[in-house]
């Protein structure tokens, strides 16, 4: 049964003539006994929703739409009428802050207050109940006579929780309950909430920027961005395979979900003031089209498990799809080597897919085929929905570029830096001489190389390995690829240089938003940058999945061996068994 439904809710803050649309057309239903999570960065409008459900928005907010509780529209009630619902039916655990509790009234009194008012308890009864609540939330009842400033952040959080539970509400809203807590208390609060939910069957709305926390308690989740829900659905589905570019970015920048990966936030800033026409995420989106800046996408169902997404392109699109690729080398001794054996994979817009495997597993051949450098003997490769044309996509902007393992073969030693980088432009006759020079200087900046005349005139042969790999990268970047295939690009470099190149590459990818296929035999390094991993063994892809899942729970026997084969640096002394 629906306990709360929000229909096309809009909350616009009006200050001195300017309007901030904190919540801009949101609808959702919450069923009894469900835990509904709302996640989003700060300023996405989460708290505003909570306050509107409680009817606590200040007067300078224009509210449109409806909040329906148990079949009754409460959003248009007067404050007095709403008091009947407050705390007894709907209670909120306010976001922890120094002044969230009244500084001059002791905590016990503040907790008992609503019980006396709503449940008609006497002072003594309320105090007894307060003691129970304190115990339940893990606070010693001696704190009842303390004042808020004497409590630590964690204790205050518990007191707030006790206060919210005091009248046994049917719907409990939790606003950023974990933000002031350390890891231990966070887990305790989570367990407490789950227990409570089991025992008392509360319906809960959990609002937080902490995706890990929300996903560990909620059953359904909504991802908010600038006042709109961009994606919603069952928690597991959304977390493991986010469909909206924003949810993916958010989830990928969550350290608990990607333990091994380096953190890279979503490029760009969320709030820029002013209004963004069309999709609010379009300034940061890597796959936007013209339609995206014209009209805002609606939240539409996709799939049948209650999943909805607001994106003109139906969520993250596939950039490259390959089906059943085969390639076989004829060896001189008449034997044949099946280097690529029925490989199918797809690369999504803006993601980093790592292909890992031992030397000789067919990774490089696959890379060449995907880049259009080699033709598969069978199977098809589609790039942006079109079959890969014979001349490949390397010769145009927004195509596919590949950077090879060996910088010495990809950039001729006899070329100057300038010539090596602008060669693709020369070949494809793009731009005038000056334009080409400017473009070269730009990409040199991107790969953190000097763009001074003296450096441009240097011969590639004079450069170090790391510099040369960067020049190769610049040469690829000058064509502004949508997909970059990096084939073992760091294996010829020493540790420190390879770390630098890798960070540079990932940084570029993050800022520029291109997709990448990163081919490597080094699993540890891969985990630092990959979103998804495909494991290859003797020409076949044996396992694909979320980088973190593949690493923590490899399902294929070969992957397990690969994961287990990492030696790791051992810092403890070895104890005799």
């Amino acid at each position, binding site marked *: 049964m629906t306990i709360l439904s929000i229909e096309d809710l809009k909350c616009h803050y009006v200050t001195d003539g300017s309007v901030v649309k904190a919540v801009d057309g949101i609808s959702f239903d919450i069923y009894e006994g469900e835990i509904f999570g709302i996640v989003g960065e700060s300023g996405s409008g989460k708290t505003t929703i909570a*306050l509107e459900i*409680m009817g*606590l928005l200040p007067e300078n907010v224009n509210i449109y739409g409806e909040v329906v509780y148990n079949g009754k529209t409460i959003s248009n009630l007067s*404050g*007095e009428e*709403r*008091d*009947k*619902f*407050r*705390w*007894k039916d709907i*209670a*909120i655990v*306010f976001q922890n*802050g120094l*002044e*969230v*509790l*009244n*500084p*001059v*009234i*002791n905590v016990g009194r503040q907790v008992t*207050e*609503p019980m006396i*008012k*709503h449940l008609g308890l006497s002072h003594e009864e309320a105090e007894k109940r307060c003691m129970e609540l304190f115990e339940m939330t893990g606070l010693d009842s001696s704190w009842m006579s303390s*004042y808020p*400033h*004497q409590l630590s952040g964690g204790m205050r959080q518990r007191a707030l929780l006790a*206060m919210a539970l005091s009248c046994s509400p049917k719907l409990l809203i939790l606003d950023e309950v974990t933000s002031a807590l350390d890891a231990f208390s966070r887990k305790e609060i989570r367990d407490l909430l789950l227990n409570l939910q089991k025992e008392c069957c509360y319906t809960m709305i959990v609002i937080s920027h902490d995706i890990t926390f929300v996903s560990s308690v909620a059953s359904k989740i909504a991802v908010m961005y600038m006042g709109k829900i961009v994606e919603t659905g069952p928690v597991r589905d959304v977390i493991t395979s986010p469909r909206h570019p924003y949810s993916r970015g958010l989830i990928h920048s969550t350290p608990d979900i990607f333990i091994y990966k380096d953190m890279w936030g979503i490029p760009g800033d969320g709030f820029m003031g002013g209004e963004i026409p069309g999709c609010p995420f379009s300034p940061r989106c890597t796959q936007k089209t013209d339609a995206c800046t014209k009209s805002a996408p609606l939240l539409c169902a996709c799939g049948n498990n209650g999943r909805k997404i607001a994106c003109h392109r139906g969520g993250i699109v596939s950039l490259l799809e390959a089906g059943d690729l085969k390639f076989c080398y004829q060896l001189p001794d008449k034997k044949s080597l099946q280097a690529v054996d029925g490989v199918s994979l797809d690369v999504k817009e803006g993601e980093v897919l790592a292909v890992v495997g031992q030397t000789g597993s067919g990774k490089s051949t696959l890379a060449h085929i995907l880049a259009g450098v080699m033709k598969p003997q069978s199977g098809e490769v589609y790039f942006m929905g079109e079959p890969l044309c014979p001349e490949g996509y390397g010769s145009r902007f927004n195509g596919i570029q590949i950077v090879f393992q060996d910088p010495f073969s990809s950039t001729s030693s006899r070329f100057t830096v300038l010539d090596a980088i602008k060669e693709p432009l020369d070949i494809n006759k793009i731009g005038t001489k000056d334009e080409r020079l400017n473009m070269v200087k730009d990409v040199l900046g991107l790969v953190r190389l000097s763009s001074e005349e003296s450096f441009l005139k240097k011969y590639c042969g004079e450069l170090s390995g790391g510099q040369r790999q960067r020049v190769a990268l610049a040469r690829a970047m000058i064509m502004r690829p949508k997909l970059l295939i990096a084939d073992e690009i760091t294996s010829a470099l020493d540790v420190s240089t390879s770390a630098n190149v890798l960070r540079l590459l990932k940084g570029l990818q993050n800022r520029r938003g291109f997709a990448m296929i990163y081919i490597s035999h080094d699993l540890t390094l891969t985990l630092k940058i990959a979103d998804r991993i495909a494991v290859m063994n003797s020409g076949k892809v044996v396992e694909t999945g979320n980088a973190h899942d593949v690493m923590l729970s490899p399902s294929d026997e070969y992957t397990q061996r690969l994961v287990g084969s990492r030696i790791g640096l051992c810092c403890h002394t070895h104890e005799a068994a």
Partner: protein
Amino acid sequence: MKKDRNSFIFRFLLTLLVILAINFFLPRMMPGDPFSTTSADVAGDEIIVMTEEQREYYIGYYGMDKPQYEQFFIYLKNLAAGDLGKSISYKMPVWSVIKIHLPWTILIVLCATALSTFIGVIFGTISAKNRKKSSDRFMMAGMIAFAEIPSFLLGLILLLIFCVYLRMFPLAGAVTPFAVYGGVLDQAWDIMYHAFLPVVTLSFAQLTGVYLLTRNTLITVTSKDYIRTARGKGLGEKIVWNRHALRNALLPVVTRTGFMIGMMMGGAVLVESVFSYPGIGMTLRAAVVGRDYPLIQGILLVLAVSILVCNLTVDKVYQMLDPRVSV
């Protein structure tokens, strides 16, 4: 803690010493002396009522022939023994004079404080509740305009209207002279009857301050998170305002009120003169006119001490009201 206390006592004593010095030397810097009275009608015109010998005799009698610093030390010594000296014009101990007049001043000051605080808080609350509405603006404009009227002028107007024309209130005094009371109640009524207009005048002078302070603090307080919390709990506007908002907003009002009492003691001079109310202010005025040094010193000292005491009390009361200030 102990060190704190020591430094506190030290500071207190130092302040007292400075006050004493000022009290002592300032009156003596005025032209004239106790034995040549200055006519209030003809400014600066000295009328010698004593012969030169008499004068010298008295100067010697009150020890005023000694150098001033010596006199000061004698004054301090006597003070330490609890002796405020003898009033020259009243011909009796200064303390006795003060004892007669101080209670009247305390009476009107306390009543005025209570009245102005009470009304100011109520008006301030009403104003804050109707913030941005015309009633608030109207009230505020009125209050501020009102504050511009000097209190002695207001006193004069009230005196003219109620005492001279309407004859509702007495023109002077704190009690009806030679009255015989039927009982305590009767006496209290007579006292209130006399004190009424001075109290009203004094409170009007303070009202706007309390009103503005209450209104502004309430507006700040009501934007705080804990008010939202209280509203969210569905406690109803009455409890939200009275228990949650006012209690916080009154903290600065309490402080102000405390300081105000001290200031009003001194400020009562004008109002007391207007209504010829026999309080300490009137006495001070007479003492100044008569150059009654010991009396001036005594009264100023009492006023200074009462201000200090008020400030101390405010600190203590504040500590009791605001749990955040550690005791």
